[in-house]
C-alpha cells in the first residue's frame, strides 16, 4: 500500500471535548468530575490516598501526573536508596506545603498501612510483577509501570491475581488514553479499515541489553542502597553499580546468553499493547516466526498478522503502530499525529493531537476506576495478553525459530524448550 496519504492536520485543545466547530471529537474521555465528587475541593475522606514505590526518573514523571489531581493525597514513598527517599519526599512535601510524606526502605511497610488505597509502582521492571501482586494481596489498587511482567507465567498470574483480589490495576501503557492512538485502534477494531490483515509494532531494538552477573564491586551500606532488596525476586548476583540502572537490569525477559529481546518487551509493552487493542484485546497470536530482515511475524488465530518491524515507518515519532485492513490503513506515533489512507476514515470527527505521550490521562483513568471499580484501559487482562505476545516473540527470537502457542492451555505446541521459558523461579523469599 502506498504511503501517500492524508496526515491529519488538525490541532485541537484539551479544554473541550466538543470542538468550537461542533464536530464530534475524539478527546480523552472521562466520567464528568462532578459525578465522582472531584469538582473543586475534595473532602479528605473522599481522596485516594497514594504511596510511591521506587520513584526514580519514570516514577518522578508519573508522580508529577498524580500530584495535581485534586482527589489524590500522596502520603508516602518507599525506595531502596536513602538519597532518593529524601528527594521524592521533598517533591511531595513541597507540593503540599507540609512535611508529612513518610519514607520507607521496605515497600511492605507501605503496604501494611491501612490508610493507603493505592500505590504507584515505578521500580525497575525486575520488581514490577512481584510488587504488584504483593500490593494486590495487601488490598491496594495500583498503577504499575511497564513492562509489567518478566515471562508468560507471571502475565497469567497477574491477571488472575487482580481478578481474585478485586483490585484495580493500571499498567503504565499510557498511550491507550491518548486520542490519536485510541482512534487508530478504534478504526481497526470496528472494521472501518475493512477486514484487518496486518498490525505493525515497532520494537525499537531487537537487540542486546546488559544484565547478568557483572564484576563484583564493593557493596554500599544498606542505608545507601539495599542491594538485597534491589535484587528482590531476581536470582542473586554481586553488587555492580551498572545494574542499579533499572533500565538495564532484567528488562529483556532475562534470557541469558544472547541477551536479545530487550526492545521487544520494553517497547512492545506499549506498541504491541496498542496492536492488541486494535484486534479487540483478543488472545495473543498463536504463531511466532523466527526473525528475518529486521522483522518478526506473528499470527493471530484468525490469520491477522502482528509484525514487529524495525524499519519502514512514516516519521511520526517514537512508538509507531500501523494497522492495515482490506480497505484502508492508519499509522500513528508519539508525535500525536496519525496518517490515514483516506480522510474519509475521520468520518467528520476531529482527533486531538497530543504529542509527547503524557500519562496524565492514564492516571486520571486509573483514579476514576479506583472509585468506580471499573476496569481501566490498561487493565490486567489487556496487559496479560500484550505481554504474552511480547514474551512469546522473545522466545522465538531467542530460539531463532518458529514457535506455536496454544491459548487454551497456555503452552507452546510440541516445544519443550519454549515451554520451559514461560516461567522463572523467583529468588527466595519472594513469590507471586
Amino acid at each position: 500500500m502506498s504511503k501517500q496519504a492524508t496526515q491529519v492536520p488538525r490541532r485541537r485543545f484539551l479544554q473541550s471535548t466538543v470542538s468550537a466547530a461542533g464536530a464530534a471529537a475524539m478527546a480523552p474521555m472521562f466520567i464528568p468530575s462532578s459525578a465522582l465528587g472531584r469538582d473543586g475541593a475534595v473532602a479528605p475522606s473522599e481522596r485516594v490516598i497514594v504511596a510511591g514505590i521506587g520513584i526514580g526518573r519514570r516514577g518522578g514523571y508519573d508522580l508529577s501526573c498524580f500530584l495535581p489531581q485534586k482527589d489524590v493525597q500522596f502520603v508516602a514513598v518507599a525506595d531502596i536508596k536513602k538519597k532518593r527517599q529524601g528527594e521524592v519526599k521533598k517533591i511531595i512535601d513541597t507540593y503540599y506545603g507540609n512535611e508529612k510524606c513518610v519514607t520507607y526502605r521496605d515497600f511492605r511497610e507501605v503496604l501494611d498501612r491501612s490508610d493507603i488505597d493505592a500505590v504507584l509502582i515505578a521500580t525497575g521492571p525486575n520488581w514490577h510483577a512481584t510488587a504488584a501482586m504483593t500490593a494486590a494481596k495487601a488490598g491496594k489498587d495500583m498503577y504499575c509501570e511497564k513492562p509489567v511482567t518478566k515471562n508468560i507465567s507471571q502475565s497469567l498470574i497477574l491477571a488472575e491475581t487482580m481478578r481474585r483480589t478485586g483490585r484495580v490495576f493500571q499498567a503504565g501503557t499510557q498511550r491507550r488514553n491518548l486520542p490519536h492512538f485510541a482512534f487508530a485502534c478504534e478504526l481497526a477494531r470496528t472494521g472501518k479499515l475493512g477486514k484487518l490483515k496486518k498490525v505493525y509494532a515497532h520494537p525499537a531494538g531487537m537487540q542486546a541489553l546488559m544484565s547478568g552477573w557483572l564484576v563484583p564491586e564493593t557493596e554500599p551500606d544498606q542505608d545507601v542502597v539495599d542491594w538485597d532488596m534491589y535484587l528482590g525476586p531476581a536470582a542473586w548476583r554481586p553488587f555492580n553499580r551498572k545494574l542499579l540502572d533499572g533500565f538495564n537490569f532484567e528488562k529483556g525477559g532475562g534470557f541469558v546468553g544472547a541477551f536479545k529481546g530487550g526492545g521487544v518487551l520494553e517497547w512492545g509493552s506499549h506498541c504491541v499493547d496498542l496492536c492488541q487493542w486494535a484486534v479487540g484485546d483478543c488472545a495473543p497470536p498463536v504463531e511466532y516466526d523466527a526473525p528475518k530482515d529486521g522483522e518478526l511475524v506473528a499470527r493471530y488465530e484468525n490469520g491477522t498478522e502482528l509484525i514487529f518491524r524495525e524499519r519502514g515507518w512514516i516519521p511520526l515519532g517514537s512508538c509507531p503502530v500501523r494497522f492495515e485492513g482490506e480497505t484502508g490503513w492508519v499509522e500513528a506515533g508519539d508525535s500525536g499525529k496519525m496518517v490515514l489512507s483516506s480522510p474519509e476514515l475521520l468520518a467528520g470527527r476531529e482527533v486531538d493531537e497530543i504529542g509527547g505521550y503524557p500519562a496524565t490521562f492514564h492516571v486520571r483513568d486509573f483514579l476514576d476506576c479506583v472509585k468506580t471499580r471499573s476496569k481501566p484501559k490498561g487493565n490486567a487482562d489487556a496487559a496479560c495478553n500484550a505481554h504474552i505476545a511480547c514474551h512469546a516473540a522473545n522466545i522465538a527470537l531467542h530460539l531463532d525459530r518458529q514457535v506455536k502457542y496454544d491459548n487454551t492451555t497456555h503452552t507452546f505446541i510440541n516445544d519443550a524448550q519454549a515451554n520451559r521459558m514461560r516461567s522463572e523461579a523467583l529468588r527466595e523469599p519472594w513469590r507471586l
Partner: protein
Amino acid sequence: MNTTRQFTRSAFLFVTLILVANASARAFDGPDTSPEKEKELLAVLRSDAPASEKAIACKNLAIYGSPAAVADLAKLLPDPQLSSWARISLEVIPGEASDEALLAASESLEGRLLVGMINSIGFRRNANAVESLTAKLQNSDADVASAAAVALGHIGNAAATKSLTAALATVPANVRSAVAEGCVLCAERLHGEGDAVAATKIYDQVRAADVPMQRIIEATRGAILARNQDGIPLLQEIIQSPDKKLFQLALGTAREFPGSEIDKTLAAQLDKATPDRAALIVQAMADRPQTVVVAAVVKAAGQGPTAVRISAIDALQRVGDDSCLSALLTIAVGDEEALATAAQQTLSVLPGQDVNKEIGALLPTAKGDTHKLLLQLVGQRRIDAVNEVVKALDSSDKSVRSAALVALGETVSLERLSLLISQAVAPKHAEDATIAQQALKAASVRMPDREACAAELASAVGDAPAAAKTTLLEILSEVGGTKALQTLATAARSNDDQLQDTSSRLLGKWNGVDAAPVLLDLAKTAPAEKYRVRALRGYIGVARKFAMPDKARAEMCRNAINATLRPAERKLALDVLTLHPSVDGLKLAVNAMRVASLKDDATAAALIIAQKVGGKGVDVSALMAAAGLDKVKLEIVKAQYGAGATQKDVTAVLRKQASNTPVITLVSGTYNASFGGDPSPGVVKQLNVEYRINGKDGKASFAENALIILPVPK
C-alpha cells in the same frame, strides 16, 4: 451473555493457570533436551568455575537440562548465592527427580532458603509434598509456615484443602492470612472445576475467620460468585455495607456477576443509596450493557441529586438508545449548565438505530435552543438533512446560521459543496465568513474524492476576493493531491505577490514527497529570491521528513546543494545526510568535501555518517580512505576495551593501526577479533581511547564494533 462470559473466562483462566504450573513438572511433547549442550553445562557445574559461570549454566539448564542434571543442580540448593539459580532450572525440568530434589532440600534447609524450596514445590504443585508442607504450617518461622500455606493452596488437591481449612483456626495470627490465601486458592480451583458447593463452604469459612480485611474481600467475592443467583442477597448486603472496602467489592463483583437478575438489584439500589454511592452504582450498571435496566438509568438522569444525574447521563453514552432521546433533549436545553453540557455530550454519541431518523424528523418544527441543538447534532452525528440545514442559513439569528454552517460542513456532499464555497467566498452576512470558511475546510478534508474536491475549490480561486483566495489555497493544501499541488504551483508563479507568498508558504510545508519536483523547480525559477529560498528549504524538508530509499534521499540532497550557493541551505542538506546516514549519503558528503566552501561542513558530515554506518557493520573504510581527510599527527595515549572493571589494554593494537588521519581501521571486522579475544563474554563492552591529535588531548568512547573515528580536539 457478556457477564456470563466474563465469569466463565475468569474460572477458565484459573484452570489454565493450573495447567501452566502443572505442565512445567511433566514431560512435554516434541524435542526436549540437547544432550551435548547439557553435557557442556554440567561440566561447568562440576568444575571449579567461578560462581558467575555456574549461575549462567543453571539458567541455560532450564532450557537444555534433563532429569540427569538434577543431582548436580540439587547440590547448589544450600548455596545462598546459587540456590535461586539452581531453582530456575529445577522448577521447569520435567520429571519426579526435580520434585524429589526440592522436597529433600526442604527437609534440611532453614530460613529464606527453605522458603525458596517451598515456593518452588508450590509452583510445581507436587502432590507428594502435602504431608511435609502440612507439617511446616506449624513451623516457628512465620515466613516458612506462610510459604507452606500458599504452596498448599497452589497444590489445591483434597489433602491440601483439608490441611488448610483445618489450620485456619489453629495457626498463629501472623500465619493466618497466608492460610486464608491458600484456602481461597483451593476454593477458586474447586469453583473453576465446577464444585461450587465445596468452594462456597471454604469461602464462608474464610469470611468467618479472624483474618485481614483483604482476605475477607477475596472470600466474599468468591462466596457471591460461587453461589451464582443465590449470591445476590449477599451482594445486596455488602453493597449496603457501611464499610467502603466492601461497597467497592460489591461494585466490582456486580460487574462480573452472571445473569440479568443482578441488574434489577442494582437498579433497586439507586433509590436507597446515598447520592455519592448511587452515582457509582450507575456506572457499574452501565458496565453491564447486555442486561442493564436502561429505564432505571434514564430515570436517574432525569431527576434526583445532580451528581447521580450526571453519572446517569454519562452512562447513557454506553447503554442508551432511542428511548432516551426525548429526555436527553429536554435536559440538554435546560437551565442547569452542568447537566445540559453532559446531556449534549451524550446526545452526540447516543447509541440507537433510529436516533438519527428521529432527530431529522424533529428538525423542521423545532424552535429556539432546541433548533440550534438539533442542528448541532446533525453535524456531530453526520445526519443527512441538508435541505433542512440549508433553510436555516436564512435565519435572522446568527447563532442558528452558525450552527447550520457547521452542520453543513460535516454533512454536505461533493455535489453540493458549491453551497459552502459560495458561503465562504461571498457570505450573505459578512459576520458568517469565518465560520463558513471553517465549515468549508471541514467539508473539504473529509471528501473521499479529493481530486474532485480540489477541482471544485480550484475553480473558485480565480474569481474570489483576495482574502478568500488565501483561504481557498489554504484549504487546498489541507486537501492535498495532484490538483491541489498544481493549483498551488501555478499560484506561486503568478504575478500577485500575496498569492506567491501564500502558495510558497503552503508548498513549503506540503505533506508529501509529491511536492518535491514542484519545490525544486520553484527553488530555481520563483519570481523572487525569498520565495526561491523558501521553496528550497521546503524541498530539503521533504528529504528530511519522509521515508524514501537512501539513493533517492542522497539525490535530493545533491539537487539541493547544486540549486544554491547559499551556505545555510547547503548545510541543511548535509544535515539531512547525517540524520539519515547511508552509504549513498556518505559518497555525496565525501564528494562535497572537494568543494572549498563546503569542505568543513562536508567533512564533519562525512565523519558522522561514517561513524553511524560503520557502527552497523557496513565497511566504509575504503570510502573514508579515499576521502582525502587532512593529515593529522595522531598519538594513541591509552586504549582500553571491556566492561566495568574488566578492561583489556589495547593501546599497542591501536598504536599499530593508527595512521595520519583520525580514522583507525582495525585488522578484523570485530573488536573481539582485533583485540585478541572477548574480555567479558555476555556483556556489552566499550572501547575507551585517550589520544592526542596535532598536540591536543582528546578522549572518545566507542560502542562495541563501532568504526573508530577520533573527534579532532578543538
